[in-house]
């Protein structure tokens, strides 16, 4: 009961971030299928350097084009940035704006405050990812093409699992730093570090972004259950660490 007001407050507070995220993601999602024809025509008319001929051929394949432009690039890059933006401020903004005392003097448990903030902000991020991917799928259908819906769903799950790790990392730093900007910068630096394993094929399996792109699903190796489970567990551990830190610190 006591937390009901906080659910509504958090939704109100996050609505602009959500709408802006949805607008950006949605436009990019719709734009990709709509521009396929133009890209394909360009491939035929513009002379392509020899070293890019193979990639150009691949891009002319509609399925590869949609996967590479959305799941393999834009979605996980935007989702990472959005995860940092949504996660980095959930506690630090309350501290830097000095509203934390007003909030914590209310009869709501700190754990509940944390849980509500986490759930509302991650849900907003997840909704942006899901709605914009659905917008992409609708654009695919309406332009007379097709793309397997199961691949769309499985890739979306990968993007959500990966972004939950980035989001939880940002939330943790939000409980460490009192300035939101500092929390954002450190979270971005850590998110950048997460990309390092992806640069080396030997340790590529340890890269969040490799899994977020859903490459293994696209090449038909099946749904990678183990990486999803690992990412969910890592997110859970980060949640607990952040929650514990928030519940025990002085304000």
């Amino acid at each position, binding site marked *: *009961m*006591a937390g009901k*007001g906080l659910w509504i407050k958090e939704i*109100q507070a996050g609505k602009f971030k959500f709408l802006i995220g949805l607008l950006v993601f949605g436009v990019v999602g719709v734009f990709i299928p709509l521009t396929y024809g133009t890209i394909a025509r360009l491939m035929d008319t513009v002379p392509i350097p020899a070293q890019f001929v193979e990639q150009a051929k691949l891009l002319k394949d509609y399925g590869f084009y949609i996967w590479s432009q959305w799941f393999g690039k834009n979605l996980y890059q935007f989702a990472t940035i959005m995860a940092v933006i949504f996660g980095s401020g959930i506690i630090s903004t309350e501290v830097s*704006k*000095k*509203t934390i*005392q007003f909030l914590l*003097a209310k*009869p709501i448990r700190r754990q509940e405050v944390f849980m509500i903030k986490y759930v509302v902000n991650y849900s907003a991020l997840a909704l942006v990812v899901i709605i914009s991917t659905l917008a992409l799928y609708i654009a695919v259908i309406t332009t007379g093409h097709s793309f397997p819906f199961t691949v769309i769903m499985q890739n979306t799950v990968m993007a959500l699992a990966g972004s939950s790790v980035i989001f939880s990392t940002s939330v943790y730093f939000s409980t460490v730093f009192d300035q939101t900007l500092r929390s954002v910068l450190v979270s971005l630096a850590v998110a950048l570090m997460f990309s390092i394993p992806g640069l080396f094929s030997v340790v590529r399996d340890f890269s969040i972004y490799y899994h977020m792109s859903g490459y293994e699903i696209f090449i038909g190796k099946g749904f990678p259950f183990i990486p999803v489970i690992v990412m969910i567990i890592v997110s859970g551990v980060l949640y607990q660490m952040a929650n514990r830190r928030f519940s025990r610190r002085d304000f």
Partner: protein
Amino acid sequence: MTAEMAILTRGLTKMYKDILAVNGLDLEVRRGSIYGFLGPNGAGKTTTIKLLLNLTYPTSGIATVLGHDAVTESLAVRGRVGYVAEEPVIYEYMRVSDLVDFCRRTYTNWDMAVAGRYLDLFELPVGKRVKELSKGMKNQLALSIALGSRPELLILDEPTGGLDPIKTREFFKVILEQVAETGQTVFFSSHRLYEVERVADTVGIIHKGRLVFNKSLDEIKSNLKKVRVVFNEETSPTGLKDVPGVNSIIRQGRGWIIECDGCLEEIKAKLGEINPVDIEVIDMTLEDVFTRYAGGVGDGR
């Protein structure tokens, strides 16, 4: 003992790294009282309040608020306490009505009629955003919200900082009326002596994290006296320093000032034996008390 106390602390201590903010505080605030918590800046007033509301964890010691442990039963405490922070920072982007709605959903004992009464009294524009309100209006809004939860204990941390004298008077008038009507306990911190003297019935002075003085205003008026005594010859009343209740004996020009607590008649009798030229008894003011116990760095009058 706990039942009749709205606030009870024993050995309450808070250490921030190497700074001792609250140092073994033993505080007792009776239910139904208006307790003025005085102290110079940095004395530990705000930290004490944060400890009572579990915004900060104690390093050692215990605090009970309305019979509940401030740490382990913090939720029960916060449900029964209204709090107005020093320069209350409320969600600026919210409309006043949204904020009231947020609080209504947060407190189980919320009384919309009470909150509405104070919003009307202060003529607060419910459709405006908090950021559009003046500082005084924000204080009034914070008080209206605090009272709307029908708290058994109202904790105010320097509630009138930055308010002009008229707004300050209005602010305390509301509190006094509310207390008269409901019998709530009010615990408010301040470094403005005139404010405390006008409103409080009991005064505590905190200095360097310790409670160095705790008395009712009636006790201060009836017991704490300054005796100004002048002698013809080089006579000194320093022999009186052993009389129980004598706090200090200070030379002032040709005379002496003896500060005493509840021992006026004995002092008079002893002075009579050493033939003073003049004896004058002066009531000690809160400013005198503050100067003596906290080094006199309050805002005075």
